[in-house]
């Protein structure tokens, strides 16, 4: 779960990391009030999308009246499909240099890793590899001062800046650990006449650990269908095509999408209903798919933990209760295959045994092949 910038900055403040003075607002009038008493301000849209600056979601003002006008403009905007309803109005920093600092999870090293660079700012993704310092942290000892000194040496910074890093980095690591973060990123980390200030805050919490952080607000920027799928604990992603796809397991679901495309079809979604689902959950997954009005339904089941008879039964249940009038291509093998096939046969559906046949049939049914 990504946190809005203003929430990330509240966290930073709680852990003693300097952030600019400012306020989160949701109307032009509040923006004007927030700019009162500050010289120049920056007005930042609070959406969970990168590249806000490039998309026009960040603006500057040098008076409360100007802040009001700018806030009015940004509050009406849609940024990468997300409507702006909150702004962060804060003091404009006098920035001497923009650094980059982040802690994230390194899958290859199986541990946290510090990323640091002197070339922070908008184009940090393009920073040359040798200009981005990577320091893996042994989680059993955590962040130590010597690590920060070594990171500073590799960055080539010393003196006051090094002193600030030694106080700064352990705080960021504490946030990373305490909040079960996948990412705690500051870009840019501003060098100002008053020292280091976190000019931005990007904190992502591990979804699987949210149960340990019930005090955090629930943040969701998803479509209604994706939210519904989440309620049902289904992995669901909307796509643009017309073949609705349901399979069990992320890998095989992705492979199903790939094969559909290989044969010239267009997937309407990714839906992995996982392993071991019962009739009710399988039926709910089906209902959800049918709600998207696809042209063809493709079900690809290789039963391991998932039982074929359960899937077949759920299908028949939904078919009988609401009527499935669109063409269906069904592939069914694995655990309790015979029982599953018998159930489908009763409603006149002959399931395929291979994924290839089922996909080709689905594509034919759309008329694309």
């Amino acid at each position, binding site marked *: 779960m990504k946190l809005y910038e203003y929430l990330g900055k509240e966290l930073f403040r709680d852990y003693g990391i300097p952030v600019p003075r400012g306020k989160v607002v949701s109307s032009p009038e509040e923006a004007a009030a927030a700019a009162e008493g500050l010289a120049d301000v920056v007005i930042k849209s609070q959406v969970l999308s990168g590249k806000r600056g490039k998309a026009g979601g960040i603006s500057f003002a040098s008076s409360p009246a100007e802040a009001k006008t700018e806030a009015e403009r940004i509050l009406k905007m849609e940024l990468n499909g997300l409507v702006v309803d909150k702004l962060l109005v804060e003091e404009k920093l006098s920035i001497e240099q923009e650094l980059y600092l982040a802690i994230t999870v390194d899958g290859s090293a199986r541990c946290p890793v510090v990323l640091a660079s002197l070339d922070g700012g908008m184009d940090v993704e393009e920073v040359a590899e040798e200009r981005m310092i990577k320091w893996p942290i042994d*989680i059993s000892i955590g962040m130590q001062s010597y690590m920060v000194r070594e990171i500073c040496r590799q960055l080539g910074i010393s003196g006051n800046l090094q002193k600030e890093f030694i106080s700064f980095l352990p705080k960021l690591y504490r946030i990373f650990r305490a909040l079960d973060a996948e990412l705690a990123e500051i870009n840019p980390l501003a060098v100002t006449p008053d020292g280091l200030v976190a000019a931005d805050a990007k904190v992502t919490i*591990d979804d699987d650990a949210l149960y340990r952080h019930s005090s955090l607000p629930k943040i969701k920027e998803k479509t209604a269908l994706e939210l519904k799928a989440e309620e049902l604990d289904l992995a669901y*992603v909307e796509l643009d095509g017309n073949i609705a796809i349901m399979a069990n*397991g*992320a*890998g*095989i679901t992705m492979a199903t999408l790939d*094969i559909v495309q290989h044969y010239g079809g267009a997937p309407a979604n990714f839906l992995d209903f996982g*392993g071991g689902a019962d009739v009710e959950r399988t039926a709910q997954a089906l209902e959800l798919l049918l709600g998207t009005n696809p042209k063809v339904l493709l079900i690809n089941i290789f039963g391991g933990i998932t039982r074929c008879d359960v899937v077949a039964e759920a299908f028949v249940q939904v078919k009988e209760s609401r009527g499935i009038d669109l063409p269906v291509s069904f592939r069914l093998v694995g655990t309790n295959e015979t029982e599953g096939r018998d159930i489908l046969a009763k409603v006149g559906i002959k399931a395929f045994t291979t994924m290839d046949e089922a996909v080709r049939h689905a594509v034919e049914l759309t008329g694309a092949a």
Partner: protein
Amino acid sequence: MAIYVNEKTRVLVQGITGKQGSFHTGQMLAYGTQIVGGVSPGKGGQKVEGVPVFDTVFAAMEKEPAEAAILFIPAPFARDAALEALNAGLKLVVLIPEHIPLHDAMEIMAYAKAKNAVVVGPNTFGLVSSGRSKIGIMPNRYFIPGPVGVVSRSGTLCYEIVGHLTTGEIGTTTVVGLGGDRVVGLHFIDVLSQFEADPDTKAIVLVGEIGGSAEEEASAFIKKSVSKPVIAYLAGKSAPPGKRMGHAGAIIERGRGTFASKVKALSAAGVKVAALPNEVATMVKEVL
């Protein structure tokens, strides 16, 4: 031969009295796995499928010493159970559960490293040395002995590909599921080096997917240290960037971990990449 597990490996099942734990204990016993004990706090003294249940891993180890443990434990409690197994001296710990918090997984991996133990998963179907023993949840009948080593990030897709091999009457030495999470114990290169050293493994199948850099790291390793033929299949060719496709790993970010970069790396290492899952068996046949 087989890697990591064989018919002599003594296995403990943590969470043996639960629905999944008891069901898969039965399945593993049916496959020939030496399940010597189960652990379920507060349920010591019971039996599941004829297997004695203990309150703690230490109690189990006193009566029935084992080398491996498999966990059927709800995600919030998995770290505790995994650390217990490692502390008690188990050298192979298979983490079946999905949704284990990332930070818990990192702590488990750090402790396993200190204990010189191997962790498989989390979010894995486990591993099976065909015809000998399985420590996992894969359907028994597809895993017949033969000359091919298989290593996969995803579960059902791996069954799919092994299913095609089995239909083509090609068996497997060992099949290892690495797990779909961002932090997992075994990586491709660990398993590849074992297959390279195993005289019975004549060819290797690698099943990967988009996201992360595991396939690129595997490619570099194969180029340098693997002499046996490797066939690969990769899922996620059609996935749009920035969308999370279920697995924590299956996401493309910042242009890294893309399908194209993985195919390029694997091809450069001499790996043949199948366009469709059902081509893998045919391609394996050609190199055997």
